[in-house]
């Protein structure tokens, strides 16, 4: 127990140390960098596993979580305490975070072409262009090593540190610190290839968009601190009296209780971080970073953090809930989550970039989790968070592997106009890249919820079952979204791997090395296997073999009053999820079996003009540009500058000037010239002020000592007056 508590503190340390060591010392050596980075990830991974299995074996973990606290900031007599805590939710979270992070680290070594020669004309800040090597007498081009190899491992180490901190935090402030560290790292890593203008734009966009959410979240934290005087999860979330008080106090805004307002503010943070509906725009652009970063952002860390935070704060969100009556934050979550799930899924239908499809599917799946939490399905949301992390990491890393294989082909043909990420340039990669194909297939099936065998099925099915029991609206929206998910996943798999190669490059694609496929295989196992821990006991047939371990483990991490037994089994959602998954997959294969090019996408004919909308993501970027950016520009140009500055202020000043000019004229003609000049000025009047001026300007000598003397005179004069009057 003591050792475990100590070990928890050590979990986030190795990646942070790796960051500093690489930045300060090892940055010249690529080998040392990746060894330190991967080594740190492995250490954290091992430690996490130890902690996780300790947590699994512990009795009453929900009531007595692992962890310890330290004094941190001295605050007016008391100390603000920070601490780390492992309760069931954190235990599950470090489990998936540690595994995916470790896999991503390993994968990155291969992805950045470790072991390849230096590029011919690679510049730091741009992706490697390939190196020419002479072998057996003839030249050919091979992939070249990333020029900023060490930098990548430093940043990603810091990223992992942020995620571990966030997951293990036992108070909201520490969580927020991890949250912001990840924000910074996502900024740095999305713009990793800062030579590309698009990457620069994307990094700024991601940073600013998430910042919008973060501001509200900080407000929420501040509100929570002022109303409770603590930010510790134990003290707030597991104390029914505090929650009652929060839920029954009126905040004065929109008729919300303090708990409601805090919940909504925190949830807006999640909207930013987890790319929910109005603030989702940054996530697809985040694809500009290297693929391991995409996996990191989409699966292991960044966006999961947003969902993790709301799951963590669920008792607060649900404070005041009575008999299934949703609280305002939950209502907002259910609405925004389900809208996001459907909306992102539709966009994914029309994307041709292999990573963008996955990006929108991530948004969609996060919408699932948020919606599930909104209707109170705490366990299901967590379950889906974990399974999603595994299969989405798998899919992203798989797509990176595909892109790598395609780049191989590009280097072979030398035609650099072929986009290695466009799915219409692929096809038939099944035979070229068998390991990537099979793992990708597993990931894709898990994403679509292929029945029974995949983990995605179990978590999605649980969400749908919960939705069926709690809210018909959410259920139907999610079911449609699930159908679309299966459809576009199959579209992706079909276009990428099945059929015949559409380009020469695809013909010369090449399976990637074991650095990359190894993690894929590990993740594929988890994408299948992890579902088994959450099979409902009432599931026909299989349920007899299951004790629904996850539900009991996680459910007991909740306060007593929120804990609910697993739902009774119901046939309708199961059939629905079977139908949407299999139907979507089948339809996807049937439609895209042999589509030769993007122009002949059958969806285009069916959807017509709507397809263009989808292709352009509902014109969201344009809408934001029109709604916020252009008005801001317009406002600053037209209103602030032209109207206020030029017209109002300048105009007023001009008016004043004219008036005074006119007045001055009158004075001059009728007072100044006759009275002052003639009468006084020509005699003593002119001389006196001039003399005074001459004397006075000596004060401003420009020499500092004069000023000092004056200041001293004033100071000591003041002292004298003070002393005398005090006497």
């Amino acid at each position, binding site marked *: 127990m003591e050792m475990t508590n100590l070990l928890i503190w050590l979990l986030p340390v190795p990646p942070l140390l790796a960051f500093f060591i690489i930045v300060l010392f090892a940055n010249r050596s690529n080998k040392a960098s990746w060894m330190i980075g991967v080594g740190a990830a492995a250490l954290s991974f091992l430690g996490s596993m130890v902690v996780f299995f300790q947590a699994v074996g512990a009795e009453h973990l929900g009531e007595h979580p692992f962890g310890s606290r330290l004094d941190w900031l001295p605050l007016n007599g008391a100390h603000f305490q920070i601490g780390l805590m492992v309760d069931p939710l954190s235990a599950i979270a470090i489990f998936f975070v540690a595994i995916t992070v470790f896999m991503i680290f390993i994968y990155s070594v291969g992805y950045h072409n470790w072991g390849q020669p230096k590029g011919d004309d690679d510049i730091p800040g741009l992706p490697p262009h390939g190196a020419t090597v002479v072998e057996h007498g003839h030249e050919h081009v091979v992939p070249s090593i990333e020029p900023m190899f060490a930098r990548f491992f430093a940043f990603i180490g810091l990223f992992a540190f942020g995620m571990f901190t966030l997951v293990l935090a036992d108070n909201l402030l520490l969580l927020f610190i991890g949250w912001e560290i990840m924000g910074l790292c996502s900024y740095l890593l999305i713009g990793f290839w800062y030579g590309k203008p698009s990457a620069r734009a994307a990094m700024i966009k991601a940073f600013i968009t998430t910042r919008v959410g973060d501001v509200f979240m900080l407000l929420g934290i501040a509100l929570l601190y002022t109303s409770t005087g603590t930010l510790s999860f134990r003290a707030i979330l597991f104390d029914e009296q505090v929650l009652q008080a929060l839920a029954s106090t009126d905040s004065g805004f929109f008729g919300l209780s303090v708990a409601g307002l805090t919940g909504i503010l925190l949830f807006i943070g999640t909207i930013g971080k987890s790319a929910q509906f109005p603030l989702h725009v940054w996530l697809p652009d985040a694809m500009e970073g290297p693929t391991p970063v995409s996996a990191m952002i989409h699966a292991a860390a960044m966006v999961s953090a947003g969902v993790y935070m709301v799951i963590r704060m669920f008792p607060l969100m649900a404070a005041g809930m009575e008999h299934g009556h949703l609280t305002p934050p939950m209502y907002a979550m259910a609405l925004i989550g389900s809208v996001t799930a459907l909306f992102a899924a539709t966009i994914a239908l029309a994307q041709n970039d292999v990573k963008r499809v996955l990006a929108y599917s991530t948004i969609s799946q996060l919408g699932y989790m948020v919606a599930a939490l909104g209707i109170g399905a705490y366990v299901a949301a967590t379950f889906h968070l974990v399974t999603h992390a595994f299969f989405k990491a798998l899919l992203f890393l798989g797509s990176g592997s595909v892109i790598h294989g395609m780049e191989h082909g590009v280097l072979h043909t030398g035609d650099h106009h072929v986009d290695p990420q466009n799915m219409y340039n692929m096809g038939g990669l099944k035979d070229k890249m068998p390991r990537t194909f099979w793992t990708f297939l597993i990931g894709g099936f898990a994403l679509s919820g292929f029945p029974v065998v995949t983990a995605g099925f179990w978590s999605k099915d649980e969400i749908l079952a919960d939705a069926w029991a709690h809210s018909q609206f959410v259920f139907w929206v999610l079911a449609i979204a699930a159908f679309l998910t299966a459809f576009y996943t199959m579209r992706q798999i079909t276009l990428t791997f099945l059929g015949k190669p559409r380009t020469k490059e695809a013909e010369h694609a090449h399976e990637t090395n074991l650095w990359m496929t190894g993690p894929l295989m590990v993740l594929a196992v988890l994408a299948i296997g992890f579902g088994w821990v959450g099979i409902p006991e009432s599931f026909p047939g299989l349920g007899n073999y299951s004790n629904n371990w996850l539900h009991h483990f996680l459910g007991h991490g909740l306060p007593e009053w929120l804990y609910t037994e697993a739902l009774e089994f119901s046939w309708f959602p199961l059939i629905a999820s079977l139908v949407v998954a299999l139907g979507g997959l089948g339809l996807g294969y049937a439609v895209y079996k042999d589509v030769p090019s993007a122009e002949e996408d059958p969806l285009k004919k069916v959807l017509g003009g709507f397809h263009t909308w989808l292709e352009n993501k509902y014109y969201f970027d344009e809408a934001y540009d029109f709604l916020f950016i252009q008005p801001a520009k317009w406002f600053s140009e037209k209103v602030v500058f032209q109207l206020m500055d030029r017209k109002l202020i300048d105009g007023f000043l001009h008016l004043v000037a004219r008036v005074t000019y006119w007045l001055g004229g009158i004075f001059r003609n009728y007072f100044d010239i006759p009275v002052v000049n003639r009468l006084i000025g020509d005699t003593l009047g002119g001389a006196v002020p001039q003399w005074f001026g001459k004397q006075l300007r000596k004060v401003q000598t420009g020499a*500092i000592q004069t000023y000092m003397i004056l200041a001293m005179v004033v100071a000591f004069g003041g002292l004298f007056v003070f002393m005398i009057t005090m006497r």
Partner: protein
Amino acid sequence: MIPLSWYLILAALLFGIGLFGVLARKNVIAILLGIELMLNAVNINLLAFWRYLTPGDVTAQIFTVMVFVVAAAEVAVGLALVISVWRKRDTAYADELDMLKW
């Protein structure tokens, strides 16, 4: 025994001398010398107060630490400025550095 007043008078006089140096010397470095004298006067005061009023408490010494830090920082920056001004304008006289004159 030496009464507290002696130290205070000494410090006040030293402060006055330093003040004179700051106000009257032409050379910027000489002004810095004056500032050092004034800071020393402050230190004498602080330590005298510590010894005579609160010998069991080191708060006064903490302030002495701060004075030392400020003195070191001030000399470093000040001399760097003097040297850089001297490079540019070839003078180190405070009354010749009067670009802000009327």
